[in-house]
Structures are given as structure tokens and as C-alpha cells.
């Protein structure tokens, strides 16, 4: 069966090439700033022209780096089963990260997330069948800041099977996070062979690599842990306001990331990701649900595909403060455009309010958004010519296909069967259920999932090993013990 994949694009091939040419010229002439010493040494050793802490790579050096970056990355779940196939036009979703707040379903107001919220986030992610990846999407407020990044990885491993997108908050975070992941996978080489986590590495616009994020890039490259470039031009503030120039800046920053990364670990997996945003010129905010933001994301994905690297974008999120019309609109349009653009990994589900607030209730609603987007890109399955004629001939007298074997054989593949939060019942059913709105049906679904407890408890000896690593880390940081119960 062949299918025409529905697709959206915002740039022609010629326009993509022109964008890349502009980005290359920007790097050659303007250069990029590097705060990290070892990265500067690497660049210098590779013959990149350095002007103080500013690097000016040539087109050839950038092309060489792109040539060694792998076009496809497979990320495996905790059990070692392939979960994310990042390459080509494959599309996967994972919860948007990393929120400073969680939306409380009772007060419907944001509050500080805790370790328990992190565990519940993993449980709910496990329960969302259209969301293939997990994410350490909350910043826990009940553990010391110095421990936050590694604590999140511990929690994700203890409470979920799906692979995770994560990132470091401190330079010394990577080593412990890597140790936790390698313990579950059965060693450093096993983890390199079967990645379990993706690390976000964010340049600072315009054209800067901070010491911390640059270090993450180097650490990922050397260990083979997939790095995800998250360039975030803000149109009109840290970037030119025009969509095309935002794509150029994104391309330049991403190329600089690929260069540093591939110099540190040629052939290591790297993802062309991003979190650009247009700017609301009244409020000075950076709306992720703005349509121009989505245009930039689609353009970035086209550029990444053209350059032959897996792609990522923050899409399918909203700037609304609750589960309302704006929330559904922005999440739905973003997720669908991202899927139609063939973005390999779309981070967004659950996220509200300019990437600051995660909501478990939104996550289960977004699961349906993701399902719809994934079904859309499956397109129209091609059956044999004349099949309709035969089927209609058989059924025209009976008048209904409901009992026909053809219907039974195909409806589950053809129809996206929605979950409980999508109402396709009668008015009477809805009324009898108490007339639930989005909040009520989403909250009920979350409660159903949480009531089942940890859906993916970790093997006891592995659990003990992870807790021992974390206990040792707490001691190293001078903490009296684990700051919270990781198995709430």
C-alpha cells in the first residue's frame, strides 16, 4: 500500500538553500560567542578562526560537521524497546519541558511542582498512547536547586518506561544523570548503543553558547547521549522580527552547535531542535501559540531535513492559563502543523503559559490532539482500484456496510478511536454524566490513570542501585539525605 503523506512547507528548496547560505555567511563574518574553555580549544584545534571568544567557522568546516552527524536516531525505552525513530518524516510527541509551575486542577491556579507531581507526570505520560516520549517536564521545588536536574531523571526512571527529554541545570549534573541512565541500561556502552534520554542544549540568542549549555553539548558528544539543539530566537528582541530572518538565526545557532558537538564526538547523535517565538508587541511576551512561531518552527524543520539531521520543535502548546478555547486552538493548530511538517519530535503536550506551566489535565487532552495529528499524516490509505465498485455492488441491496466484513476488517485502522475526553456521545449521555466540560473530563481521566498507581515500577535491585547513586550524590553535595521520597 502506498500513501501520499499530507505535508506542509513554508520554504521552497531554493529558499532553504538561501537561508542556509545566509546562516553560513553570518557565522563566517559575525561568528558566535563561546563561554566554555574546552569548546574554544576544540574549535581552535580544528582550525576554526578565533577572535577572542568569538568563533568564525568556514563553510567547509560547517559542512564537514554536518557530514558526520547521523541522519537518524533511535531512542529506546527503559526496557530496551525502540520508542522514538527520529529521522525521515516520522513524527513523535513528548510532553513540553521544563515548567516552573504545575496547574492545580482543584484551584485551577498554578503552584510550585513537587516530587510527587514529577511522579504523577510520568504516570500520566505512560497512560497517553499517542505520546511516545516522556519528559522531565517539571522543575521540582521540594529539592535543592543543585540537585534538581539529576533528581528529575531519577524520578522519570522510577516512574515510567518511556524515554525522556531532559537537560542539565548545573555543569556537574551530567555525570550523575548519565550514571543513572547507564545503570538502567546496563553500562555506558549499552547506553551509547541504545539511548534512553535526550539532552536539551540551548544556545543563547543571538549567537552565544554559555558555559553550562556548551558543556552539555560536549558531554553528550563524548558519551553518545543524543543532544537536542534548542535555539530560541525571539523575533524583534533577540532576533530580527521577520520569519525568514528568525529561521536564518536559528540555522546559524544550530550549525554552530552541530560544529562544536561533532568536533567533540564525530558521529554522535544530534537533533536540529528549537524553541523560537514571535514576540507580542503589547505585552512583551513570547507566545508559543502564535502562528508566526509555528511558521518559524516549520521552516526550521525544513532546513534541518535539508541538512540531513533529525528535527525537533516545541509545538502543540498554548499560552492560555487554563483549559479553554485558546488552549485547544493553539495546541491543535501547532501539533497538526508540526506533524504535517514532519517534525520528528514535537515537545509541547501539557504545556501552558509561555512554556512555564505543565498541566496533567492538559496532557491527557493533548493526547487526543496528538492522536488526531498522527492520524492526519497517515493520510489516505490506498486500496485496490475498483474495490469501491465491488463493495457497493455487494451492499447496495442491504443498504448498510455496518455488518459487512470489510467494515470490521478496516475500521480500527481507518478511524482514530478517541479517548474518554472527546465527547461523541449523545446530548442525553452528556447530560446524564453531569454535563462535564474540558476540565471535568480531563480531571476524571487523570484521576483514573493515577488511581492505578505506578504503571511502570522499576526492578527492585535496579531501584536500589539508583537510590544508592542518588544517596551518594546527596552526600557529595553535603545534603543530610534524600530531600524527598522519590517513591511517593
Amino acid at each position, binding site marked *: 500500500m502506498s500513501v501520499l503523506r499530507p505535508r506542509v512547507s513554508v520554504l521552497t528548496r531554493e529558499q532553504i538553500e538561501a537561508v542556509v547560505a545566509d546562516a553560513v555567511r553570518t557565522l563566517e563574518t559575525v561568528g558566535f560567542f563561546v563561554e566554555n574553555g574546552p569548546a574554544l580549544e576544540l574549535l581552535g584545534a580544528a582550525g576554526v578562526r578565533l577572535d577572542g571568544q568569538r568563533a568564525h567557522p568556514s563553510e567547509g568546516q560547517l559542512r564537514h560537521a554536518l557530514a558526520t552527524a547521523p541522519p537518524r536516531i533511535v531512542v529506546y525505552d527503559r526496557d530496551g524497546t525502540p520508542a522514538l525513530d527520529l529521522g525521515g518524516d516520522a513524527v513523535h510527541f513528548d510532553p513540553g519541558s521544563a515548567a516552573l509551575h504545575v496547574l492545580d486542577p482543584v484551584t485551577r491556579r498554578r503552584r510550585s511542582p513537587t516530587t510527587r507531581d514529577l511522579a504523577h507526570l510520568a504516570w500520566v505520560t505512560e497512560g497517553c498512547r499517542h505520546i511516545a516520549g516522556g519528559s522531565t517536564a517539571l522543575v521540582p521545588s521540594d529539592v535543592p536547586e543543585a540537585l534538581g536536574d539529576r533528581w528529575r531523571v531519577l524520578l522519570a526512571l522510577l516512574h515510567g518506561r518511556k524515554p525522556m527529554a531532559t537537560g542539565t541545570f548545573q555543569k556537574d549534573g551530567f555525570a550523575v544523570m548519565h550514571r543513572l541512565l547507564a545503570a538502567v541500561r546496563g553500562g555506558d556502552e549499552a547506553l551509547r548503543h541504545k539511548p534512553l534520554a535526550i539532552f536539551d542544549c540551548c544556545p543563547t540568542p543571538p549567537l552565544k553558547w554559555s558555559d553550562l549549555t556548551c558543556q552539555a553539548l560536549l558531554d553528550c558528544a563524548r558519551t553518545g547521549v543524543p543532544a537536542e539543539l534548542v535555539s530560541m530566537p525571539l523575533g524583534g528582541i533577540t532576533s530580527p522580527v521577520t520569519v525568514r530572518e528568525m529561521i536564518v538565526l536559528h540555522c546559524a545557532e544550530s550549525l554552530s552547535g552541530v560544529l562544536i558537538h561533532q568536533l567533540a564526538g564525530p558521529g554522535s547523535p544530534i537533533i536540529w531542535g528549537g524553541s523560537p517565538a514571535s514576540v507580542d508587541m503589547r505585552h512583551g511576551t513570547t507566545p508559543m501559540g502564535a502562528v508566526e512561531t509555528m511558521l518559524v518552527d516549520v521552516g526550521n524543520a525544513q532546513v534541518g531535513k535539508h541538512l540531513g539531521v533529525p528535527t525537533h520543535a516545541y509545538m502543540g502548546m498554548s499560552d492560555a492559563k487554563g483549559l479553554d478555547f485558546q488552549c485547544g486552538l493553539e495546541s491543535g493548530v501547532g501539533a497538526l502543523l508540526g506533524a504535517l511538517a514532519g517534525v520528528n519530535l514535537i515537545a509541547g503536550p501539557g504545556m501552558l503559559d509561555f512554556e512555564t506551566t505543565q498541566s496533567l489535565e492538559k496532557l491527557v487532552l493533548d493526547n487526543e490532539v496528538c492522536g488526531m495529528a498522527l492520524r492526519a499524516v497517515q493520510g489516505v490509505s490506498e486500496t485496490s482500484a475498483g474495490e469501491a465498485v465491488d463493495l457497493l455492488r455487494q451492499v447496495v441491496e442491504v443498504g*448498510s456496510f*455496518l*455488518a459487512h*466484513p470489510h*467494515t470490521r476488517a478496516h*475500521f480500527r485502522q481507518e478511524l482514530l*478511536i478517541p479517548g474518554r475526553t472527546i465527547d461523541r456521545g449523545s*446530548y*442525553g449521555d452528556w447530560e446524564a454524566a453531569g454535563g462535564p466540560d474540558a476540565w471535568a473530563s480531563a480531571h476524571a481521566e487523570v484521576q483514573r490513570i493515577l488511581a492505578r498507581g505506578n504503571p511502570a515500577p522499576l526492578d527492585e535491585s535496579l531501584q536500589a542501585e539508583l537510590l544508592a547513586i542518588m544517596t551518594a550524590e546527596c552526600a557529595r553535595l553535603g545534603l543530610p539525605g534524600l530531600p524527598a521520597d522519590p517513591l511517593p
Partner: protein
Amino acid sequence: MAHEELLAGLRQAVLDCDEPRAARLAREALDTGMPALRAIDGGLVPGIQEAGRLWDEGEFFLPELVGAAGAMKAAMAVLQPALAGGGSRELGRIVIGTVQGDIHDIGKSLVATLLAANGFAVSDEGADVPVERFVTRARELDADLVCASALLTTTMVQQRTLVEALRAAGLRARVMVGGAPVTPAWAAQIGAAGFADNAVAAVAVARGLVRS
């Protein structure tokens, strides 16, 4: 094949919506000397009940529901003649149709299929059925129930006319109504004895009505 195995096979054939297999196993059951009643009660009925349960759980969908009913019907066609006293095992007699002016047939046919699969003797009058036709057929069959479907708000009123006409004719048949615009409140308002908004519920309501 042992009797237990045959019964399990019949049950599975219903769940698999496999009409030829259900009919074949029904014949095998009779050939091995199994009473038809046992094949029905021990094989087909558990199968269709399981289908109903899977429907309630959200595992089965309409095509599977009608498919299971179809398989049950195919096996019943084999077993029915072998039942002692002919077709006397029916739960009750039902006349069903979509009211006059309304040609929507699918929901009504689904209800008819499931009622038949669950042991009712069902006379499906099709769509666009005049009230007089419902009354005549109810009288001829001495029906326990008359089921009337309406998919349009403009044809719903026919259900009220039907209730009144059956009462005026002095027939014992009770009325069950259904269809997209129909609500329990409407059913109560027009004096219908039963209401169901899906085919599985219709079977349960019909069972309750013929018992009471």
C-alpha cells in the same frame, strides 16, 4: 469434538463475528446429539453476552456488535428447527420500524439485529412505516413490544401517534422509542413504556418490559 469444546467454539465464533463457523459448529453440535437448547444457552448466549460486555467496556464497536449478532443469527437458523416445540423459546415478540416520513434505517436495524440475537422474535418493518402498519402487525403477531425509531425532530411526533393508536386499538403491546433526538423525557411525555439510546441498552430495556 467434545460438547464443551463445541460450546466454547460457538461462543468464540459469535465473538469473532464468524457466520460460517457459527453455523458449521451449530450443525456439528446437533450431529453429536447436543440438544439445540444447550447449544444456544451454553454457547451462543454467553458469546453475545460477552460481546455486550465488551461493548460496555469500550472494547467492541458497532461493526463487531452487529457482526456478533450476525454470527448468532446464522447459528440460530440451524438450531431453531431442532428446538422442541418449534421456535417457542423466544423471549417475546417485537415489531420494529422507523416511523413514517423518516428513512433512517441503520440504528433501528442494529436494534432489531441485537434483539433477534438475544432471543426475541423480531419483525422488522423497515423504514418509513405508517402508524397503521405498526398497529396491524402488532395485532397479527400479538406483539409484546412495538419499537419505533425516529431520527428527525419532525418525525418524532409519529411516536406519540403510535402510542395513542395502539391504546385506541386496545392492544396489549407496549412501546419502546429511540433515535437521535429522542430523550427519556420525551418518552415519558408521550406515554411510551421504554426508551433506549443505543442497541445494547435496547436489549436490556426490552427484557425488562416483557418481564414486567
